[in-house]
């Protein structure tokens, strides 16, 4: 049945369609709807477990415990909460725990501008926890895609045995569109659990899930390998290769709009929706799998264009990655402070294409003009 559905709800419904049966979370705008829906779902659906944790640290760690116990677990948060969850993300990467984190971004750093839309967590997703790891992350730009991408995130998490991140933002999370999720739920493929739950191990071989480097095989199995670089290399590259292989199955992106234009615009999430009226002027590259970087795909496309502009609601985080992958200049249009409008997008593109700076003209502070800000502060 076609129904007006919110982006956050679509994420939740996608998770359930993918077999999720454990949610732990802490309320934070603009992701709170997912928590509310999860608690209501748990009250009416036997087998779906819900925990409202005391903080994001606890909820992220609870995902790890639940996943090891056999659940498909997930949580939803926003930038400040995701900062607290980073240690658990790294723990999940080290041990290989399938689970899904949803980050509905707002403007940071710190408490920032609750809850204006932002995309400032693109690099936090990539490098947020300590050490080296290769996370997989997706970023939908609509309600239907939010559903589909969440299912794929759960599948990729199982296949790669790692925490997978679904990025969203205030606008996508609160966007309402008419979709038929029930019909979509019939078509999806779901990857079953890939690790044996706690207590259901091979008889006589109990496992030790450790955040420290341990020998996994051979006569030293079960001993810490905390001073063995060779063992680190073996495990690190095996995990990295697995993640890259799995990511390769989800090389999701959109190449469209006026594909024979001379300028390629890179944007994703809400910005790609806001910029859509420019469809007659520019070509579009929209990464859906944000991490690992779609290097080969972008290179194959970018050769056809004279100039590349990356528009995003942060200070050029994806533009940096794109420039590194392409080895040529990617002009950046940062949309900061939650001001994501067609006007800002159009002005920004025209400014950088005419050789201007990436920064927009910055108006003087209200006090210098002798006025008060609309909110009565500053």
């Amino acid at each position, binding site marked *: 049945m076609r129904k007006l559905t919110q982006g956050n709800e679509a994420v939740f419904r996608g998770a359930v369609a993918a077999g999720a*049966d*454990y949610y*732990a979370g802490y309320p934070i705008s603009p992701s709170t709807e997912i928590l509310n829906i999860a608690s209501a779902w748990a009250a009416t659906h036997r087998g779906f*477990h819900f*925990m409202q*944790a*005391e*903080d994001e*640290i*606890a*909820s992220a*760690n*609870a*995902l*790890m*415990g*639940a996943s*090891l*116990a*056999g*659940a498909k*677990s997930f949580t939803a948060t926003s930038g400040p909460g995701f900062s607290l969850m980073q*240690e*658990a993300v790294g*723990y999940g990467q080290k041990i290989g725990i399938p689970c899904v984190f949803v980050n509905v971004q707002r403007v940071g750093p710190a408490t920032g501008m609750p809850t204006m839309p932002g995309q400032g967590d693109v690099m936090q997703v990539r490098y947020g926890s300590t050490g080296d790891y290769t996370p997989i992350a997706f970023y939908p730009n609509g309600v239907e895609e939010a559903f589909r991408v969440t299912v794929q995130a759960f599948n990729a998490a199982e296949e790669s045995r790692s925490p997978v991140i679904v990025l969203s933002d205030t606008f996508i999370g609160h966007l309402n569109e008419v979709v038929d999720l029930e019909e979509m739920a019939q078509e999806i493929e779901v990857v079953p659990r890939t690790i044996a*739950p*706690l*207590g*259901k*191990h091979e008889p006589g071989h*109990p*496992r*030790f*899930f*450790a*955040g*420290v480097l*341990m020998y996994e095989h051979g006569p030293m199995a*079960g*001993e*810490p390998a905390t001073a063995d670089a060779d063992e680190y290399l073996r495990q690190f590259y095996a995990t990295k290769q697995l993640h890259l292989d799995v990511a390769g199955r989800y090389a999701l992106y959109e190449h469209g709009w006026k594909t024979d234009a001379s300028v390629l615009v890179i944007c994703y999430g809400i910005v790609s929706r806001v910029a859509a009226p420019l469809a007659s002027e520019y070509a579009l590259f929209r990464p859906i799998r944000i991490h690992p970087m779609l290097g080969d795909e972008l290179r194959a496309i970018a050769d056809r264009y004279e100039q590349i502009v990356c528009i995003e609601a942060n200070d050029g985080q994806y533009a940096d990655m794109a420039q590194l992958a392409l080895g040529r200049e990617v002009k950046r249009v940062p949309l900061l402070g939650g001001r994501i409008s067609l006007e800002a997008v159009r002005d920004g593109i025209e400014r950088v294409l005419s050789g201007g700076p990436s920064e927009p003209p910055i108006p003087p502070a209200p006090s210098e003009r002798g006025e008060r800000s609309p909110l009565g502060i500053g």
Partner: protein
Amino acid sequence: MPEAAIAELDFKHRLKVDLFPTIWCPGCGIGTIMIQLAMVLDELGLDDTNTILVTGIGCTGRMGSYMKHEAVYTLHGRTLPVAEAIKEFRPEMNVVVVSGDGDTASIGGNHLVHAIRRNASLTVLCNNNEIYGLTGGQTGPTTPTGTKTLSSPVGNPNTPINLQGLVRSSPHALYAKTTVYHQLHMRNAIREAIEHEGFSFVDITSQCIENNGRRIGFASANEMLTFYRKTYKRAPKGADHLERFQIGTLYPQDGSMAEAQLGTDGSDQPDTAPAQPDGATTSISGSPGEGGATGRRAASAPSPRPAADDEEKARRRAESQRRLALMNRLDPKVKLLVAKREISLEDALRDAGIDPDEVAES
């Protein structure tokens, strides 16, 4: 060889003796806790398919790697959220959390407070050595006032955290205090804690001779244990509060373990429903039987395991003693194999030509 010393004990198959000696310093108290835990698990008949160990960071955290149980070695301080999620999703599992005082009460303090509030059905064994041992001996949350440590060279200016008060803030939680010297008491406390349905906390004072004891004037681990023997006394039966140097068990105030509290012989205790706790009077639940904080688990999770009655425990104890007597007749090498469960006792006895019944009668 450490193997030979404990070869005749039947709990040995629960330990990864191949990995011995452990990383713990000579004189450390953690090994004692591990052995007592292994004995309790053995007595209760719990095995690696129904019991999960969740350990924290620090010296104590390594216990999971020496026991033949599925174990999760969590991040520093995060034992409780991980354990709570495991228990929530798999209520039939027994989840035992083992971590140090710093892990439990300092970096994991917030989780402790809220696991108690939610009455998570977990058993926490807190190795309380009053110091951060693995990093060399810094002030921990339970370090007594005035103690000199690496991070308080003129003496700890702060009051130690009141674990008893924290745990007792919930009417459903069980709190036990014991020490590494009082091994039988510790074993009983651990057993009661594991058998308790709701949140249970065993606060085990243990010695860290290398990174604390020597600095505060003890010459050896033995001296520290002697200190525990001389200073710690059993609390009177039925006590509702433990003084500083008292050991004992404080039962939940909600009356769910009233029979244990009174010390009656509960061989045929009725399955009494837990009384409505005082603190839950604002609950809007219509059914008193399922209301209150215990209601959540009562409604969602079936009882994980019926508690063994006294008759059953006596039978297991007798069986255990009989096996021990039989094993003592065996050659030490064979005994070791039996202890590791590589061959069954019956096969070993048959090979050695010993008739089990004959020994039992004599």
